[in-house]
């Protein structure tokens, strides 16, 4: 499965409520713009970042560490936007 072109980055959930519905919706909205798959991995479990429900079920509370991955380097803008969402704590 591991493609050489795959991009990934480890991120930390900093906001108090964790990745709840609204923040998950923000991630999903960005991920839907991607041409190929965008994935979030936590404790070995991989989910589709375009699905708000999938993200929610990962249960990313404050302090959890996740890995963001994209399949296709063309989606680098989406990748960067999601990274900054995490980094500024979903604007909360």
């Amino acid at each position, binding site marked *: 499965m591991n493609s050489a072109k795959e991009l990934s980055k480890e991120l930390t959930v900093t906001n108090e*409520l*964790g990745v709840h519905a609204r923040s998950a919706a923000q991630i*999903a909205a960005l991920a839907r713009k991607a041409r190929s798959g965008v994935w979030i991995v936590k404790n070995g479990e991989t989910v589709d970042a375009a699905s708000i*429900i999938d993200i929610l079920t990962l249960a990313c509370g404050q302090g959890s560490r996740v890995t963001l991955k994209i399949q296709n380097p063309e989606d680098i803008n989406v990748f960067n936007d999601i990274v900054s969402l995490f980094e500024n704590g979903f604007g909360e």
Partner: protein
Amino acid sequence: MEKGRPPEIVLTGVAGSSGICIGKAYLVDKEGVDLVEKYAIDRKHLLAEVRRFQNAVKAARDELLSIIESAPEDLRRYTNILETHITMLQDKALYDRTIETIQKECVNAEWAFKKSVIEVKAMFQDITDAYLRQRAEDVVHVSDNVMRNLTGAKSVKIRDIEKRVILVAKDLSPAETSQIKLDRIKGFVTDRGGKSSHTSIIARALEIPAVLALANATRTIQNDDLIIVDGTAGIVIIHPSEQTLEEYKARSEAYRRYRNFIKKAGKLEAKTTDGILIPVMGNIELHGEAEGVKIYGGDGIGLYRTEFQYLSRTDFPTEQDLYENYKEVVSTMGPLPVTIRTLDINGDKAIAYNGNMVETNPALGLRAIRYCLKNPEVFSAQLRAILRASALGPVRILFPMISCLDEVIEAKKLLNQAKRSLEKQGIPYDPNMRIGAMIEVPSAVAIADILADHLDFFSIGTNDLIQYSLAIDRGNRDVAHLYNPLHPAILRMIKHTADVAIDKGIGIYMCGEMAGESLYAPILLGMGVGELSMNPTAIPLVKSAIRSLGFGQTNDFIREVLRKDRADAVAALVEERYGDLVEDKAYFK
């Protein structure tokens, strides 16, 4: 680690209807998946079914958008969650998944959608973070919107349940309880309601155990959980242990034996030790219950509530429908009297096809006689049907919710018109059919002397009389405990009504729940109430209580009762003097 069996949980509520049942729980609410019908979709129509689902989602989305748009300025910050819901609507776990299921399994959209929702909710259940776990609620809210659009918000179809189960619901509406099939439903458990709420009355009529006002039964009990309903003690046991199960099986058997004994006791007449005969009658709701009144030894029907024929259909029943129904009750009862109460709708029995009347306070609104006088064509059909039934046996007519003289005069005017029209058509009826009024509104008590001049009898309806006099909603669990028939105000009102009736020489009966409590029999007899009508199952007990009473003694007793200043003091006095009348309660404690 070994998974033990789930711990036994005991919930305490209000004892709505006596008896014990053991069985599997069936949750009746919008989350009960079984309530969504599954049916096959022909391949030709799959595309249309998918489109139907897409339209339902779009409609849900549009609703949410319009809510967001129309939100007032200071609520704007709360609309974020609605935007999230819109995103969720289009989520593949719900949206794509449902379409996939419709196409792959050739099933209807509701079923496919429900399946996706359940899968999503299951994913949330494993989350340990409490806040995030609760986000499952968002999924439920979202799915409710879509499901409502799909189903057109159909009500629960209890009639379609095909298993032997115990119903667990937040609340059951009269229209729902009217669909209950005895061979399917073993008992009821509800979050809301109380001893006198409609659900309890129905459960007692059907002789199935019920526990109400449990607050959070629907959240604690899961579909298919093994539960014990002890409707005598008012408790529900979830996941009972082996020991508890054995104990309850034995108790249930003892209760059955007791019931059999009691049925035999119903056959004897209710004559006081000093020879006064008190007719003990049954209240019924469905025509089929007349048979039960006879089995329990009832001396007639003191209250036939006629609402169900109106509630169980989408249009109004015809005169002929009503007549056929009344005819069956009258012929079942043979020579015994049948008291037919005219339509008492609205209040807690809103009729679906009149659904555009939203009343903020239905108990004080357009109900019963008020509704009938405003809808004379509906009323006249019933009056004619009752008159026609009166040709077949002793029928009495009873007008509900009378609060002023004009209502009696107006109702009698319509009754006379119905008589004349029958005469013209040569259709027989009893010209001397007795006419009575329910005494259940405090103003009727106050003007009892005025009303008595126009009537043949009074029938005291204690349930509403207490509710209206004490300003207590008997369905509200926070105040339900204040609902007390022994409140000195209530006792004085009954005494006044009875005194007036006796003075004017008209009949004085009681058909409220109070009449069915054997412990209250000495009070009611002492006040001169001449006939008691109750839930049929209470007849044998009340009859045996009357047989052990001396009418003369109760007259003296009542003077003592009326000197008491609080309900508690009255209760203590009755208990002390006549507590042995209800030793049956100890029988299955």
